[in-house]
């Protein structure tokens, strides 16, 4: 008897949903900006920031693994997005446009960090280990919490080993739950290229997590 693959019913309960797109809010801000009503636009932008900042902070943290730096990257991206709001195409989702800005901001910071580390002899990977979070988790037992924490650390470390494009695709698709089309729009890659990078990234990720 044939069986069409479906989403597993045994999946763990997902994280609290991050509010999705409210296209009318972004469109309204766009109108205010183009009309030159900056103060009104800024007030409304606060609401838009509130909608997207949780997801943005997660994404930046996946890339940078440093809370302070992720915070700065998110701030920079939101400020940059507002400053260029006039160029935002309001027929398209703000989330995708903003993701592109944020990913570029994170990649710039990753590059800058690599340049910095090149001059710091002897730190290398140790400096990154400092950035591994030590936080309580919401799991039931201490053993489960420890396992989950260790798993998250291994995953983050493995993601960091991926090449930039694979990392972007894996983070957006795997961790952020974006569809191939959304990833394609956010990265500017074609959908087939996104799939290729996703498969290669996942294969490498599994390999890294198995051997670590």
């Amino acid at each position, binding site marked *: 008897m*044939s069986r069409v*693959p479906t989403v597993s019913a045994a999946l*763990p309960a997902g994280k609290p949903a991050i509010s999705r797109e409210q296209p009318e809010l972004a469109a309204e801000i766009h109108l205010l900006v183009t009309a030159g009503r900056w103060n009104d636009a*800024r007030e409304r932008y606060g609401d838009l920031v509130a909608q997207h900042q949780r997801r943005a902070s997660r994404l930046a943290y996946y890339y940078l693994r440093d809370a302070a730096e992720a915070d700065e990257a998110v701030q920079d991206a939101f400020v940059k997005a507002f*400053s260029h709001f006039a160029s935002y195409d309001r027929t398209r989702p703000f989330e995708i446009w903003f993701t592109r800005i944020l990913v570029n901001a994170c990649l710039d910071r990753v590059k800058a960090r690599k340049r910095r580390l090149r001059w710091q002899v002897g730190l290398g990977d140790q400096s990154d280990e400092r950035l591994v979070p030590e936080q309580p988790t919401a799991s039931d037992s201490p053993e489960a919490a420890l396992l989950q924490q260790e798993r998250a650390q291994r995953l983050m470390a493995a993601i960091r080993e991926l090449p930039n494009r694979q990392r972007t695709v894996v983070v957006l698709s795997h961790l952020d739950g974006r569809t191939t089309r959304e990833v394609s729009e956010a990265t500017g890659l074609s959908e087939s290229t996104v799939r290729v990078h*996703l*498969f290669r990234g*996942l294969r490498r990720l599994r390999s890294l997590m198995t051997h670590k």
Partner: protein
Amino acid sequence: MHLREYVLAGTALQLQNGDPLSLTPSALEHLARCARCAARLDELQQVLAGDRHAAADAADAMFPEPALDAQRDAILTRLAKRHAGARVLMFPTTIARLPRRDRPVTRWISGAAAAAMFAGVFTGQAIFTRDVLLQPRTPHLQARHFARQAPRYVVESGPDAPAVDKSPADETFLSEIEFALGRRNPALRALDDMTPRAPGSAPRHPHRER
């Protein structure tokens, strides 16, 4: 032959994200028939969902609600600074009045001083302008002009020099000089010896040669 793990992982992700499946028809058919691959797909979905959950937990622990509120405030503050209009300084509405000079004496003195100053400036300018206008324009005419105006202190000398009329007083004066030199001041004799002489000229110190 079973499906590879990364293909299954990609399929699991696509299922989770609501993406259309990118499996080939043969792979899809195999997945529908093969219980082992289907079980692995289920397992992978759980693993990937667990990864997503763990990563989100780790990130959310770094950004609790107060941190997000502070982040939002920081963003809006930066935007307010960035897009604040230029500051306009108000022009003073009441102009400070200068003290009035009502006393007539002070006014007359100020007026006279100003008039004298203007008269002086005008006179000086007129004199200067007159000198400039009277001065010849070309360089050789200028030289002649200044030579004519300057007193003749220069005495021309040399073989081509014109003969100068000598007055009796001049003759007396020159005779006195010759007489003084003829006395051969001993203090000047050493200097005299060092001075070169023209060949065939008379000896300077006839008393020595005697």
